[in-house]
């Protein structure tokens, strides 16, 4: 699975969960807060994306993530680790 495919999963969940993202372009440089996502919506996006990607990332690592780029880096690492 490529980085773009992982990002597509995250973006689909942002569009599905965070109302403020509707009609807006989502970039790696964004944060979910840019679309007025509340903390619970952000956790839902992360949880649903991990489920769909079939990865598990420890909560402690998730807490340190900054922005979508950080989340994508973490998920990409977990996807690569899973396939090895």
């Amino acid at each position: 699975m490529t980085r773009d495919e992982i990002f597509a999963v995250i973006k689909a969940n942002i569009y599905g969960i965070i109302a403020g993202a509707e009609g807006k372009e989502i970039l790696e440089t964004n944060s979910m807060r840019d679309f007025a996502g509340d903390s619970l919506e952000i956790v839902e996006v992360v949880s649903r994306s991990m489920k769909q990607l079939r990865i598990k990332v420890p909560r402690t690592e998730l807490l340190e993530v900054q922005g979508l780029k950080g989340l994508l880096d973490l998920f990409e690492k977990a996807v690569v680790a899973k396939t090895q």
Partner: protein
Amino acid sequence: MKWDLPEEVVGILDLAEKAPLAPREKRGAASVLDRKEIEAILPHRAPFLFVDCVSLLDLQGGIIATRYALSQASAVLAGHFPNHPVWPGTLQVEAIAQAGGLLYLKQAGPPAVQRVTLTRILTARFIRPVLPGTDLEIIARVLDDGLFFTAVGQCLQDELVCSVAAMTSLKGDANK
């Protein structure tokens, strides 16, 4: 009833509407956990703790059965409603949430998760009124959902289903 919910949740709700989720013979008379053990896991306290005892606790199978004596609810029943006491549906949902939370926390075990935070009530249906006179039984199942878990359960009186509900909770404290 048609439910617009995940298939696994619907499967349990469909069963829960019709009959107890665990047969009577599996729900023993003795409590699997005593009050001290229950209070060590759940932060709720009387008069808002709706788990007096646990008659079934199957961590592998993901199912719990609890009991609550409605004799403790006289103040609530006096006002809901005068001359027509009915234990509130909102409290039935809470009782199912407490049973599901207890099961989940017991499954997770300390120090993995010590708190859960109710985040969403997916559905609830009130089929029969819960009336004073007979203790309430709550049976709940728990489904893992990533950073969340879903509890699906029922309230019973005299083996009859009074209500069913499903809710999602965050594993851990929402503020951390």
